[in-house]
């Protein structure tokens, strides 16, 4: 009996080592399976993600104040250093824009007149109502570019709403929690936005590449894109309204058209969430009368 106890005690460290190895192998296997499953199914641990977003939005809301303070310090320092030069440039720009202002007023008047004559509505689809939010954290990791907003269902945020900064379109809402929401940035690999050139109205899809510079894709052969073209949302597909400014075309090398975002290079703190209901297809929003139920009118064959 004594010898058996001694043997058991002798074997204990080996047993423990074996147990550790088994645990390690199992956990690595589970992690790998989760990684592969998450690639296939985006809704994995969805409730866990929502709760984590709610928690981190509160914590990051507090931490964001000193962080944004440091950022502002650098921005202010740079602005002060260039103040004299910028002042001269701004004065020149104001003089240049005065002519455009008169032209814009004239065009607005003429467009309104044409609309009245044609009895049609051609105004921008951008809704007037906006929800103010704070981007408490911005994640630009190796695989995901997203931002966490401190508003959620409590402020009637919904998936698909556009998120704007003062410079331009920032992204769109992909997940909504109770008091937080997650925004997919335009630079994210999964971001696809239908856009057009403000100059030529050529269409394309803005594709994020997990880098600072998204590119234009799905461009037709006869499309007219040029460097310095302003890129705006086209509203095609009815997912986002038409007319949100995004950035400018900066390079057209190697059959790739790179876009510099207006939101790039500035610390983004306060944003607007723009409520917008995507255009519904007739199938998803049917009226009672359909082709099969419709009764023949006078003179029509059934």
């Amino acid at each position, binding site marked *: 009996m004594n010898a058996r106890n001694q043997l058991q005690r002798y074997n204990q460290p080996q047993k423990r080592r074996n*147990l550790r190895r088994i645990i390690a192998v199992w*956990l690595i296997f589970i992690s790998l399976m989760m990684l592969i499953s998450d690639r296939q199914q985006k809704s994995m641990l969805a409730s866990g993600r929502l709760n984590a977003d709610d928690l981190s939005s509160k914590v990051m809301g507090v931490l964001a104040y000193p962080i944004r303070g440091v950022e502002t310090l650098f921005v202010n320092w740079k602005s002060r250093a260039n103040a004299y030069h910028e002042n001269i440039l701004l004065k020149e720009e104001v003089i240049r824009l005065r002519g455009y202002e008169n032209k814009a007023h004239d065009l607005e008047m003429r467009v309104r007149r044409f609309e009245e004559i044609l009895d049609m509505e051609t105004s921008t689809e951008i809704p007037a109502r906006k929800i103010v939010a704070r981007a408490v954290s911005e994640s630009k990791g190796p695989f995901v570019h997203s931002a966490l907003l401190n508003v959620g269902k409590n402020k009637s945020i919904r998936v698909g709403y556009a998120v704007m900064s003062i410079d331009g379109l920032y992204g769109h809402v992909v997940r909504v929690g109770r008091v937080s929401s997650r925004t997919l940035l335009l630079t994210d690999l999964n971001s696809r936005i239908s856009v057009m050139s403000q100059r030529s109205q050529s269409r394309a899809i803005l594709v994020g590449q997990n880098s600072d510079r998204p590119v234009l894709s799905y461009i037709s052969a006869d499309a007219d894109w040029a460097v310095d073209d302003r890129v705006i949302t086209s509203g095609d597909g009815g997912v986002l309204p038409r007319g949100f400014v995004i950035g400018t075309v900066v390079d057209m090398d190697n059959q790739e058209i790179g876009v510099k975002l207006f939101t790039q290079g500035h610390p983004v703190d306060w944003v607007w969430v723009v409520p917008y209901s995507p255009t519904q297809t007739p199938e998803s929003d049917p009226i009672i009368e359909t082709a099969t139920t419709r009764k023949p009118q006078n003179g029509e064959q059934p």
Partner: protein
Amino acid sequence: MNEKESANSLVSFSWTLQGLAFGVVLSIMALMNLEIGRFHVEFIFLPLLVLYFWPVKASHSWSLICIFMLGIFHDIASNGPIGLWALVYLIVFVTLGGGLGGKAGFRKSLFWFILIQAGVIVCVYVIGYVVFAQSVNILQLLMNGVIVLCVFPLVFWFHIILGFANEDDGASVRGHI
């Protein structure tokens, strides 16, 4: 299991929880970002420091479970693919055979940490290429690595203060599950 062994198990478990708590704090701090001019400063490798300075008195088996949970927490909080950091952290911890930072001086610790970071960058790159079929921006990862190296001395000093490196009464405890 006698009373002394039970007490030792409890102590080693409490050290594991301290490591986990420290890891959660660093994971939340890793969500911070700074936009300074053209540079976007991130701290995504910050939780690696807690693996490196994992308490030497902590239970090894429980540590594995806690590190897995820490990785999942980081994945969820950073909105990344679930399982990525859990996998990377586990590989690092198993490779290290537990925390290494407490067993060496500052220079040696820094050298080994640089090597581990390089390994993690390669690991993330390979996972990105194989699982996600996308090449990760290696320059961005390298820059994040350099940023975490700047924080290294602070965490090294902090882990000594917390007693994570103290092995005095750890030898008898470490072996317990």
